[in-house]
């Protein structure tokens, strides 16, 4: 069942050899051309999945909201993404006259480019990866932060007060939720001993390629907080206060139309899919699985995670901006730090013997008891933190109601007397 992955490696080598022998380029140029082809394939995959995702999202969110979703453009509305594409291409580009020319035009390009570049390190199968950087995790998070500067550019270049304010708020949200993401990737790296995505997946697979213990079972708190921070990073619902049509009229991209707006849209969905892929790789075991080929497993897992995103979008109401910041700095960051400290100490106390570590080259063996201990610690931390937060929220609400009731009684007494 792995013939497709081997086929891709074979095709790559074949093309590289042909270019080298026929055109007598040096092997490095031939490799560069093959890598360019791989980059084109990855970009095409991202763009096609963007189209499929917009359709799936509209249909699923519609069903959650008890309506049908697009069903006019083709059977079951399947040609809707095509219709949207044609619309985006042929809409007029109303540029405000006072906009800052270069900044305004470059912003959507930079967002789309950075969103697409994160796919370069995603492993679709043991040998099928754009480039197996040994700082894969770091690269993804760093490139993901590249879109943030483009959002500021968009808000500033639009020469519009509301776009600027929307850009500020967006940046404060995106930048704030980087911190829990970073802090929660750390336990995974500690237990995997490497930043390379393929190493992280290898630790979650058994020797014959089946799925071993996924990292989700080791650190459920990290998984939950990473997922929520990922949703906040890509500014999806329920964190989409920045482009809420009823509130700040599309926020930082209010002055964009046509293809440039389409590139913003593409950037958001491609980023969301990249977060889904990262979650699968880091916490669910990436392409590991029993019978189906590896890339099918990765796509299945990413589809399940993205369905969770869409489910949250259809179900939860939008978060207010001060609630969002409170939740980040007063709940996620302290909880992530405490969880990091606990898992550091526990991992060192329950570590392997030095001879075992030497045998595996510094990576901890996947062990059931260790998983159980870490799972219990992590889940306990999560439940305790949620309990504390819930109690504080309840006490705050009771205090507020008390103040309101007192004020009401005073008003009635004053009105009566």
């Amino acid at each position, binding site marked *: 069942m792995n013939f497709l992955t081997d086929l891709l490696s074979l095709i790559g080598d074949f093309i590289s050899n042909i270019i080298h022998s026929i055109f007598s380029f040096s092997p490095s140029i031939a490799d560069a051309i093959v890598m360019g082809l791989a980059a084109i394939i990855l970009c095409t995959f991202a763009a096609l999945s963007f189209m499929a995702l917009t359709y799936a999202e509209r249909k699923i969110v519609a069903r959650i909201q008890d309506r049908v979703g697009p069903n006019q453009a083709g059977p079951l509305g399947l040609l809707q993404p095509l219709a949207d594409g044609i619309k985006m291409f*042929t809409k007029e580009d109303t540029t*405000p006259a*006072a906009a800052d020319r270069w900044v305004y035009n470059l912003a959507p390009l930079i967002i789309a480019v950075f969103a697409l570049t994160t796919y370069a390190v995603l492993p679709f199968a043991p040998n099928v990866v754009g480039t197996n950087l040994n700082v894969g995790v770091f690269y993804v998070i760093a490139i993901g932060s590249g879109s943030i500067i483009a959002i500021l550019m968009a808000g500033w270049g639009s020469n*519009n007060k*509301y776009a600027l304010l929307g850009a500020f708020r967006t940046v404060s949200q995106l930048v704030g939720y*980087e911190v829990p993401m*970073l802090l929660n990737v*750390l336990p995974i790296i500690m237990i995997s001993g490497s930043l390379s995505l393929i190493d992280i997946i290898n630790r979650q697979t058994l020797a014959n390629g089946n799925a071993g213990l996924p990292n989700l079972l080791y650190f459920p708190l990290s998984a939950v907080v990473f997922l929520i921070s990922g949703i906040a990073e890509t500014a999806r619902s329920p964190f989409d206060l920045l482009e809420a049509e009823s509130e700040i009229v599309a926020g930082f991209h209010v002055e964009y139309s046509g293809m440039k707006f389409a590139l913003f849209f593409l950037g958001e969905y491609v980023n969301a899919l990249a977060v889904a892929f990262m979650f699968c790789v880091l916490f669910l075991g990436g392409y590991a699985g029993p019978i189906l080929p590896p890339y099918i497993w990765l796509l299945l897992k990413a589809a399940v995670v993205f369905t969770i995103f869409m489910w949250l979008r259809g179900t939860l109401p939008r978060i207010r901006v001060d609630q969002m910041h409170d939740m980040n700095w007063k709940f996620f960051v302290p909880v992530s730090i405490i969880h990091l400290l606990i898992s550091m100490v526990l991992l060192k106390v329950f570590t392997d013997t030095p001879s075992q570590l030497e045998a595996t080259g510094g990576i901890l063996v996947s062990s059931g008891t260790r998983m159980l201990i870490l799972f219990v610690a992590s889940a306990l931390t999560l439940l305790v933190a949620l309990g504390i937060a819930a109690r504080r929220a309840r006490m705050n609400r009771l205090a507020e109601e008390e103040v309101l009731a007192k004020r009401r009684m005073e008003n009635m007494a004053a009105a009566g007397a």
Partner: protein
Amino acid sequence: MIVTAALLMGVTLIAASLLRPKKPSKTKLDTYECGMETVGDTWVQFRSQYYIFALVFVLFDVEAVLLFPFAVAFNSVPLFAVLETAVFVLLLLAGLLYAWRKGVLKWE
């Protein structure tokens, strides 16, 4: 990868610019303000709260970046180093708690 993505997106933008109508009119070129004329300067004063959030983010970002090499070399490091790093992280957590109690992390 960056070059390819930039080329692809650039080609899309150029294709779109060839395909779309170009009929600028005065209203279309105006800045958008919910249908009214714009009032005041565009470059508004911004609240210092954004700066504070960015500052706290930079602190925690640098902390996370310093923790990454520790995490990669975690398994070949003795328990004492773990306790040292725990002290480092606890210092930063204390900083966050101080900022919280001072009321600095409040309210967008």
